[in-house]
């Protein structure tokens, strides 16, 4: 179904960013605009997912140049879902930023760049063109790079150099892959590519190209052994920025992998093995990395890596059930990881440190806040029936069904390590008696903040925690949605037909 309004989530973020630039120095106006516009975008995203679920896939062709000649934008259930999740996380972080980001940063374009980043994410999810996807990736890289460096602290700069170098490397590999693909089939439209690549006779070249795409997106999603940039950089910027990164940046890589490896390159046996091993080792590297960290933000960073492994494992199994699991986990993970980084920010504001060794006593001092923070922490672990649990059912069952015991073992080991890491974190940060920490002059503590700012920090955590609870306890709805998406990932005909019109019978 053709519908030009599906690019509204991109447009509204773009509009917000530009509008914010007109109020460059007025920090309060900026904050108000950011929150209001995030709400508006959330509304648009809800509308988008609703119409897509009701009426099927919506498509629009930029400049009305019919596919595959122009650039296609497409809202299928997966991309609309991703847009919705982006808007949810975006709204939460926008509010959180109001409370936690220091004014100096706001005066240097924090909010406009933040909305540019969200625009880039929405664009990446909604585009149906592989080169256009690359361009959205550029937006994501440059705006995240600026956000990491914003403030120019030494640690930030160090982290950002590693971040940007490896991500540019990923882009270069991605671009090379696109060039080779274009050389092979002469098209950039993903639906068109799906048909043309399937018809290509030289499978070897197709496989080599697939590897380039895998490595390019693999760096983005931080899989082993391409993950180094993530633990090197995520703990350096202010918590609000880590929150949006932790929630969404790697997931756009996972999204790209899901899209490209179901639509364009259907994995052969080698690819399946490769993805499976990479997934398994990613789970292991991430989780053991988390085990030994002292900085809570680093713990969460490593856990991001580990849990990306789960999602890739679902892709590696390549069954409908496993993909349903991956989609379910994606939903859970975006919400919970964003929330956890905000939690780390809140802890920092209360105690003035991220170090587990020095933290402590939160449960005694802030019992209600602690119980609130327990929700994302234990959701992440996947204590049943919380949200992290359900996807594992799909994966373990798929693993048994296709006799991939290796992945089942890795997933179980990962779950156990996560459980242990988070329980330890709980014991150290919340249970242990805290040291009397010297007051730092550079920290504006939680109790020094105005009530409005305090609310602005706590409210988004409540908001995302409620969503997490809903995902866990109302799993049935989320599973229905994931099932629709999982089915469409395995059977891409509706996607292709939505873009190119009904497929000729003669073509396979």
């Amino acid at each position, binding site marked *: 179904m053709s519908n030009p309004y599906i690019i509204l989530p991109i447009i509204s973020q773009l509009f917000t960013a530009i509008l914010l630039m007109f109020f460059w120095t007025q920090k309060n106006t900026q904050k108000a605009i950011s929150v209001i516009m995030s709400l508006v975008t959330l509304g648009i995203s809800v509308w988008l997912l609703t119409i897509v679920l009701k009426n099927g896939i919506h498509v629009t062709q930029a400049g009305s140049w019919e596919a595959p000649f122009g650039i296609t934008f497409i809202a299928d259930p997966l991309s609309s879902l991703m847009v919705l999740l982006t808007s949810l996380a975006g709204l939460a972080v926008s509010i959180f930023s109001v409370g936690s980001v*220091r004014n100096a940063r706001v005066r240097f374009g924090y909010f406009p760049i933040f909305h540019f980043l969200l625009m880039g994410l929405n664009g990446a999810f909604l585009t149906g063109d592989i080169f256009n996807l690359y361009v959205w990736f550029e937006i994501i890289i440059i705006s995240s790079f600026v956000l990491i*460096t*914003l403030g120019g602290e030494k640690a930030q700069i160090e982290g950002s150099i590693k971040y940007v170098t490896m991500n540019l490397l990923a882009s270069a590999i991605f671009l090379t892959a696109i060039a080779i693909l274009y050389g092979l089939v002469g098209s950039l439209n993903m639906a068109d590519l799906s048909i043309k690549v399937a018809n290509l006779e030289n499978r070897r070249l197709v496989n080599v190209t697939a590897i380039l795409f895998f490595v390019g997106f693999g760096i983005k999603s931080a899989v082993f052994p391409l993950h180094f940039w993530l633990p090197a950089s995520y703990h350096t910027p202010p918590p609000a920025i880590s929150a949006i990164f932790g929630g969404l940046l790697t997931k756009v890589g996972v999204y790209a992998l899901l899209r490209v490896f179901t639509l364009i390159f259907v994995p052969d046996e*080698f690819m399946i093995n490769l993805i499976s091993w990479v997934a398994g080792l990613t789970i292991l590297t991430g989780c053991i990395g988390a085990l030994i960290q002292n900085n809570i933000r680093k713990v969460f960073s490593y856990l991001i890596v580990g849990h990306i492994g789960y999602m890739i494992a679902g892709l590696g199994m390549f069954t409908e059930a496993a993909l349903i699991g991956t989609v379910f986990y994606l939903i859970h993970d975006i919400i919970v990881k964003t929330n956890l980084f905000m939690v780390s920010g809140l802890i920092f504001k209360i105690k003035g440190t991220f170090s587990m060794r020095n933290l402590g006593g939160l449960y005694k001092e802030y019992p209600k806040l602690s119980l609130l923070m327990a929700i994302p922490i234990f959701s992440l672990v996947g*204590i049943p029936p919380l949200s992290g649990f359900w996807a594992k059912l799909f994966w373990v069952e798929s693993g048994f069904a296709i006799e991939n015991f290796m992945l089942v073992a890795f997933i179980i080991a990962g779950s156990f390590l996560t459980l242990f890491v988070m*329980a330890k974190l709980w014991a150290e940060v919340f249970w242990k008696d805290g040291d009397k920490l010297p007051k730092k002059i550079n920290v504006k503590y939680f109790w020094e903040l105005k009530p409005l700012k305090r609310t602005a920090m706590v409210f988004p955590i409540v908001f995302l925690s409620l969503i997490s609870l809903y995902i866990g306890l109302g799993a*049935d709805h989320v*599973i229905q949605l994931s099932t629709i998406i999982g089915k469409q990932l395995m059977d891409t005909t509706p996607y292709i037909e939505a873009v190119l019109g009904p497929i000729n019978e003669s073509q396979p």
Partner: protein
Amino acid sequence: MLLSVLSGFLLAACLPVIGKQIKGNLSILLSALPVILFIYFLSFIPGVANGETYHFTYNWVPQLGINFDFHLDGLSLLFTLLITGIGSLVFIYTSSYLKGHVYLDRFYGYLAMFMSSMLGLVLSDNIITLFIFWELTSISSFFLIGFNNDSEASRKSSLLALGITGFGGLFLLAGMILLGYVTGSYSIVELMGQTELIHNHPYFVLILFLVFMGAFTKSAQFPFHFWLPGAMKAPTPVSTYLHSATMVKAGIYLLARFTPVLGNHEYWNTTLIIIGGVTMLYAAIHAVFRLDLKGILAYSTISALGVLVFLIGLGTDDALLAASVFILVHALYKATLFLVTGIIDHETGTRDVSQLSGLNKVMLPVGIAAILAAISNAGIPPSFGFLGKDLIYEATLHYGDWAIVLTVAAVLTNICLLFAGFLAGIKPFIGKLPQKYEKLHLPSPLMYIPPMILAGLGIVFGVLPMIIDSPLIKPVAAAILNTSPDFHLALWHGWSVVLLLSTITIGGGLGLYFILKPSEGLLAKATRFEPISPMSIILRCTRIFESTAKGVTYVLQNGYLRYYVIAILTFLSVLLAYKIFKGIDLYVNFGKLTEITLYEAIVLAIMAVSIVFTVFTRSRLVAVAAMGIIGYSICLIFLFYSAPDLAMTQFSIDTLTVILFVLVLYNLPKYLKLSDTGSRVRDGMLALIFGGLISLLTLEVLNEPLEREISAYYAENAYTLAKGKNVVNVILVDFRGADTMVEIIVLSIAAIGVFSLLKLRLKSIEKE
């Protein structure tokens, strides 16, 4: 039914809000919940006694076939009564035990949560729901063990307990999913009909292993038993409720529940007999050497759990009947002893058994409860324990070839258990009262009535077994055996070998009690074996694992950007090389390519020379200049292939880049050569290999027939439809205008970034 299971969660959810109001004496009101539930479940007794089972279904996640399917039969009923019955007493006891504690509301919250989870566990017919409740019991236990969260020992024990039970829980999850996968059903009732299929399935051994891991970790079987003594760090009501009467029996429940599904198979029986047997003996011997009352009780609990596993492993009708009875026997006397220990601890401030004696003189009712419990534990007639012990011997004696070995093991275990029971239940109360305890007084009735009720029941059931025989025990055995058994509990079976064995047990135990006096010296001797105990071994393994994790992580995440890039490029090169060269003939048809002209050759030569200069020069300026030359050469190549606009673009960009570079270089410190030759060679090799692979790939692609559909469309329609004469421009601003627009935004963002990098200097008070 759903409400009865979930009510505890609701209560727990309300407590953080209303908790402050019920701090004082009102807290006893909370006990109403378990009492009501107890009465509710009692009402099922007549029906269940008649052989009926009740089924309740509430939809939850029907997509996955995961629903609240509650199935109430004899086995579930026994457990629900234990959970709510002992739960009621523990709730009442706590209101006095932790009177005035700041976090009393939290404590009740966790307890209520636990009670609900445990009810859900024993009532679920759906194995996934069962697992969900299983994990929730582990989590509530984590919070309860760590309740005194200021103490490091408490925190460590709770982590250890969660680590072990959580570890086993995940195995159980895998086992349950596998069972579901093999049979296509998550319902235990349906699984019972598919025993044949399951037993013959190639995954049967795997299923057994997974289920066993779950059950053994939860029920503290050797070699996973060591979390349980640690768990005694929890307040005594918790030890009573979770770690002796109910939660640790979840593993037993699981094994009993799955006996009709997985049981009656050689692997099942042998494994359970061995593990159960080892556990019961090992722990019983350990219990003898303890001084701490709770330590004694912890080890004797482990031993009793071992006995239960052992009995389920025997798998005969006798053995399963014995197990059904022993579950109840043990729950009654062990809960009593724990509650009594709590009182002693509460009043005297010590749990060291060598310090305690003669307390009867100051707290007689407590003493009576304890002594009755010790008698039941010892299996002295006419207690209920006597009945249980008889049945155990009955079961071992009739177990074919191994009867003698098994019976001896059982007798030895029981002798040690008897000793442990006397130590905990009798020793503190008889003999001379030390002077320092003379001022003690009886605690609140809320504390001593519950143990008296439990201990009393232990005797009443022994004297009048018929009151629980057919209403309670028979349905339990029926559920485990999946048939209707025919037996009657009775105190007196006539003169028999069993009676002789009972006498030997009692005699042996009493003898031991009079010879062996608990002391530091004995404890010290026992702890000498600590380094080879499973606990030390497993903890050592975790330490090794942790240091390996540290090593691996620091090697991987070494902080040097260059190694990261090397890792990424190596990974990519290896994959590419493997895929490009693997088994298939590699051909690049040079004939298809156009001839190389002289101009091109010259330009290429210039580029090659410039590259060498860029790489090997020691002056930054030369390197930049050489790179500029490479850029211009590319412009020339664009020109040769008639792309003047590209050439123009490239030309301006290169000029600009060189100028900017020179400006920046001016401010940089002197050039230093920091890398050694070895690493330079390594990097050079990698660069050459990677570059070579990509070139090869490009050449291969050029061999492929070119698809011109899209570029032809652009060429045809640029003027007619898009009204532009320059196709490239039309592509950029119209056909693919969206790309260009987004790229412009990229530049704007970059500009903001540069601006903030240059201008934004955080003041030191703003850096956070």
